[in-house]
């Protein structure tokens, strides 16, 4: 099994124009648009990495990351870890669904949880959250709404449906609106070291 440094040289030699960086035991692909070429090389070359074990998203505060673990079923060789970074405002990464069917649901999950848009994915929609949910739950700056407190938008919707909203709840919603705050859940406290 090649070491990661050798792997890096091999890929850079085979696909001119790509640059990879060594990050701990994994390879960081500088340019996300090269992802399909690198993946195709990994699959079809003599490395024979035909099994995509895991596609994960991760949030590192200044950028979002998509991490891929490749294995080879034929040669039973160990993991090749590939990372791709993208920015938070407009995250876009090419999809590997054309090469590996198994990426389909996992990329949907990364989209649902982090908001990373995979170009070329046949059916990119939310998988765990319901349709129409706003926000990306797993991001570090995600603020969860408090399910017990209503906001003015909720009150308006309920009254539109013909539901009578009790006065105290309505008053609280108006107060929140005046203060310009959102009804957010309290973040669970960090467990204190003993």
């Amino acid at each position, binding site marked *: 099994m090649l070491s990661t440094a050798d792997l890096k040289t091999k890929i850079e030699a085979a696909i001119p124009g790509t640059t990879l960086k060594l990050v*701990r*035991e*994994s390879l960081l692909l500088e340019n996300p648009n090269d992802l399909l070429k690198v993946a195709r090389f990994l699959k079809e070359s003599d490395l024979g990495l*035909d*099994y*995509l*074990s*895991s596609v*994960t998203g*991760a*949030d590192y505060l200044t950028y979002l990351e998509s*991490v891929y*673990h490749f*294995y080879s*079923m034929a040669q*039973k060789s*160990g*993991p090749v*870890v590939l990372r791709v970074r993208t920015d938070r405002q407009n995250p876009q990464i090419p999809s590997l669904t054309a*090469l*590996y*069917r*198994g*990426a*389909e*649901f*996992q990329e949907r*999950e990364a989209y649902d*949880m982090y908001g990373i848009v995979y170009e070329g994915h046949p059916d990119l929609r*939310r*998988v*765990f*959250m*319901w349709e129409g949910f706003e926000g990306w*739950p*797993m991001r570090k700056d995600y603020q969860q709404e408090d399910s017990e407190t209503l906001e003015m938008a909720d009150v308006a919707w309920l009254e539109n449906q013909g539901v009578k909203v009790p006065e105290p709840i309505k008053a609280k919603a108006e107060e929140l609106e005046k203060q310009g705050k959102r009804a957010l859940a309290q*973040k*669970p406290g*960090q*467990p*204190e*070291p*003993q």
Partner: protein
Amino acid sequence: MTEKTFSLHGAGDMDTQTLEINIGPQHPSTHGVFRMNVVLDGETIVSLKPVMGYLHRNHEQIAENMSYTGSMPYTDRLDYFNSMSNNFGYAMAVEKLANIEVPERAHYIRIIMAELTRLVNHVSVIGFLLNDLGAFFTPVLYAFREREKILDIFEEVAGARMMCNYLRFGGVKYDLSPEVLARIAGILKKFPKFLEEFETLLTKNEILCMRCQNVGVLPAELAVSASVTGPMLRASGVNYDIRKADNYSLYERFKFRVPLGQKGDVYDRYYVRILEMRESLKILEQAVKEIPAGDIMSKKMVPFLKSPRNFKPPVGEAYARVEAPKGELGYYVVSDGTAQPWRYHVRAPSFINLTILEDLCIGQKVADAIIILGSVDIVLGELDR
């Protein structure tokens, strides 16, 4: 009740309407709260879209706010049938991350527990597959009789029948007494006879063969491309068992074979599971006989048993995987040096094995879709996490 009208039979001489139904989320046979959006033409399936997320508990974000050991009970609840395997994967990931050595006796205990879990799971899955087929609970109750004995062992060892929370980083929490080992040996003696009895009414049963053979055929290349793992992959003929491929945790000391199917239909998946149970029995016999005396916990980690929240692994990441009974269960843990993980991801086999559900079901009847789903062997806990 939306109905699309388009002609499926030739040049528009007869218009047919398709029927769109939801199988689930409340349904006796979808193994939990799982919905399938099925478009039918008569009894034949035209398209099938799985809809998940009814049991999504955001396990991964909970772990980001928990200490490492504090997440261990949560992993029990992922695949709630096989809690020992889930613990195993997580323990391996963190041990890889923090470079912790596990003593030999602990390895043996882990392997024994993992293989017992495999027995429990396969026997229940076959029972539930037959329940979907209509055999009205009889195989389930036969299977559960054996499962009860194994769950009693789990209770004796770990304190709980299903949510065991037994493994820790660096070893296991409690030791196995010689009485428990003797009980396990007793179960192993009776299990082959039970398997024979179980198989008698099932394997050559003509109705089972009629319903299951050539239904839901999964070709090998599609399986590899779709990242399918576990008995489903091996039933299609691909020789990939993580216990043999990665040789993790002393599995190379045990002699066992990997059964492979040839066709990849529902019947093959059922029969590969029965053969795998026999191989697990072999591993268990060898493990129970050869288990050495010794510590069950790495010396470095013993202080952390009393103060688990002080455990701070070094900065880094690790990906560890085990051959869970349902497939490849992988854990990806990234640490930033504090007591909480920065990123924690579970690669759930049920979730990924479902990718090709639509491909398997198109062209089959509704009744077949149910048993194909039963043979994919999903558990909602790990599907939705």
